[in-house]
């Protein structure tokens, strides 16, 4: 359904986020200021997306994106 000018809503870590469609995973992460962050990883719908594939992966409305990062822990 997404044509130029449409907006697309996905959930990023359970928070609804709007992007101008079409948008790739890399584009969305860039808008969120996360694309350059080190030690992060992304899964969509429970499937890990390798960094090399971010630019090719188009987002679809309603997808659930999980973005994790290394933090302090024992």
């Amino acid at each position, binding site marked *: 359904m997404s044509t130029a000018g449409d907006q697309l809503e996905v959930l990023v870590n359970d928070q609804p986020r709007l992007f101008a469609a079409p948008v790739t995973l890399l584009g969305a992460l860039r808008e969120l200021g996360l694309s350059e962050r080190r030690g992060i990883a992304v899964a969509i719908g429970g499937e890990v997306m390798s960094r090399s594939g971010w630019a090719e992966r188009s987002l679809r409305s309603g997808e659930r994106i999980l*973005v994790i990062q290394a933090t302090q822990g*024992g």
Partner: protein
Amino acid sequence: MNSSSLTIAGVTLNSRLFLGTGKYSSAKIMAESLAATGTELVTVALRRVRTDGAADDLLAHLDRRKYRLLPNTSGVRDSKEAVLAAELAREALGTEWVKLEIHPDPKYLMPDPIETLRATEALAKRGFVVLPYVHADPVLCKQLEEAGAAAVMPLGAPIGSNRGLESRAFLEIIIAQSNVPVVIDAGLGAPSHAAAALEMGADAVLVNTAIAAASDPVGMGRAFRLAVESGRLAFESGLAARSTKPLAHATSPLTAFLTEVGA
């Protein structure tokens, strides 16, 4: 000291002290404390990125040339989530090593043995180097070994409790029959606990709270380093047999020379 190095999954570690990175008051103190311990393996956790707040740049403070990272799966509730967490950690950090911890109960953080065994099997098949955190259960530890665990990490006492080797009798059995390294994880509160663990033949210990929450984490890091080295050296040197009778055995000749002469 070469005789004291430890090998896990083909990787030689020159320190038998593994460190957690949680609970430090600052990244600077964490970095200084890690350096004082001489550790070569440090755990990190994974968490959901906040898209609003400031970046948490832990990795800026961890020199990857000095420290191998051991991401944990803390926060997962079952084996399925643990596999996803391990895959995310591999993608995020470029390591196949994973400290597998599955504790569905956030109050006592007790590891779930059934899900941990399931996840160990699944992750080992996928090529991960799995170090499962478990109760000091000798049967489970053998099953984990058979399932492909690279090491086992039985707990000494509940996480963060600083109570020491409360599971000692079971740890002794685990150590006696394990074919993979045994790392005592959780509950070690003092350098003497770490020394005791190494003296009884544990291959390594993992310490976090006892160092991070000390008044001087750098000094405590050094104290743990010495304790671990001392404990290992004692183990390798063969402790003298402990008397089971309430008797004393003299270490000096008992000649009563003061009264014998000219008596």
